[in-house]
């Protein structure tokens, strides 16, 4: 039981560490990583819940399936966020960059 509690505590810590970084870090890649760390924390909680640590009680496969779903979702969202961050960088560029090489952006 204590081992499982340690894992759950670790999961909570990961969640809050990610949350802090998500708010305090300004670089988009850092923000995306922070979200991933948060997600890992939540998954750790679920998986630690799934194995009860009691003799004779089967491991609950439902949270494991939920975590699998969550991992796939977080990978796809991460990919989208990364492409979005790259696009922002490419289209807007850093401050004071050369504007000439981009086609002029039309209306909305």
């Amino acid at each position: 039981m204590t081992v499982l509690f340690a894992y759950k505590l670790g999961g909570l810590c990961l969640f809050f560490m990610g949350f802090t970084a998500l708010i305090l870090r300004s670089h988009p890649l850092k923000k995306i990583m922070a979200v991933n760390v948060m997600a890992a924390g939540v998954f750790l909680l679920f998986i630690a819940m799934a194995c009860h640590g009691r003799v004779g009680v089967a491991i609950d496969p439902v949270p494991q399936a939920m975590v699998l779903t969550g991992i796939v979702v977080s990978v796809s969202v991460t990919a989208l966020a990364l492409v979005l961050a790259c696009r922002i960088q490419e289209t807007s560029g850093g401050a004071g960059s050369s504007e000439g090489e981009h086609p002029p952006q039309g209306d909305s």
Partner: protein
Amino acid sequence: MNSLSLTLFDCVVLVTLLGLAWQLLATPDLFKAMVLFMSFGLVMALAWVRLAAPDVALAEAALGAGLTGPLFLSALHRLRGTRKGERRQQLDSIEHRGKIEKVTQRTSGRIIYLLLRILFAGLLLTLLVHLATILLHVEYENPGLGVFVAEQQEESGVISPVTAVLLNFRGYDTLLEIMVLFVAVVAVWSLATVRFSEKSGQVSPIQQGVVRILAPLMILVAVSLIWQGTHLAGGAFQGGAVLAAAGVLMMVSELPWLRLIPSLPVRLMLVFGPLVFLGLGVSCLADGRFLEYPGELAGFLILLIELACGLSIGLTLACLFVGGRPVDDLVDRGQLEEGS
């Protein structure tokens, strides 16, 4: 679980996890953070194994560490490639930073800023402690749905309980999740274009040679992972991820025959898995409910769905790695110039 005998191992895993997470979030060096992130994923996979979740461990190793890492790396590469000033990658925060710096130049401003930070940290710590005490105090943990899964296992048509939950009991969730993957590809394609026919020509022949050996092996492993999902750990997602990794390796090595132009075959492959899943679900309506596989066919149908989805997931993840709609200069140069 023989809970006390391996506590030292658990402690090492946990401390490593937390330390890696702290480091990767704190370091200002993006590349270092990236490397730490990948190792974080691998240690996470260890934790899953320890917590008796081999399916999740496989998925984490293949997806979390194996694919997210390259995703981040290629994004970093693109971010650095666009502008000279690596230091000025702070997209929207420059202005914000400036404001903060202006505020913190005055002592009173500095104190207020510090107080705000302390307040924020205190708030988060209180929340953390509160949630942890809830976890500690509420001794009773519900056994969950494990009992029900075990009871109905026979009817699900597969032996592995996780696969039974994923594809039979809660197949609807999985259907929607595959759609999330699909939408991610559509979104990525709508956002960016990538010139695919450009080749650097600088790939080491050793790399190409190794990939020529490894890629077929990986495809074999992927298929066996998908197949063994019905009775052991594994399944469409894990197999698909390995498939995607093989694709990524081949793309990185610029093997001559590999083109991912979004022509009809590629789109057909992307849609194939979700469409098969959806179609089989609807065909179950003929004499039952949505996704209610007829008893004796359940195992076969699940295998079919896993195979179809595994292929599509592999291609989907590879497309996500490419990070944009691949454009062949020869085919639609006109479109690229007009588009962004």
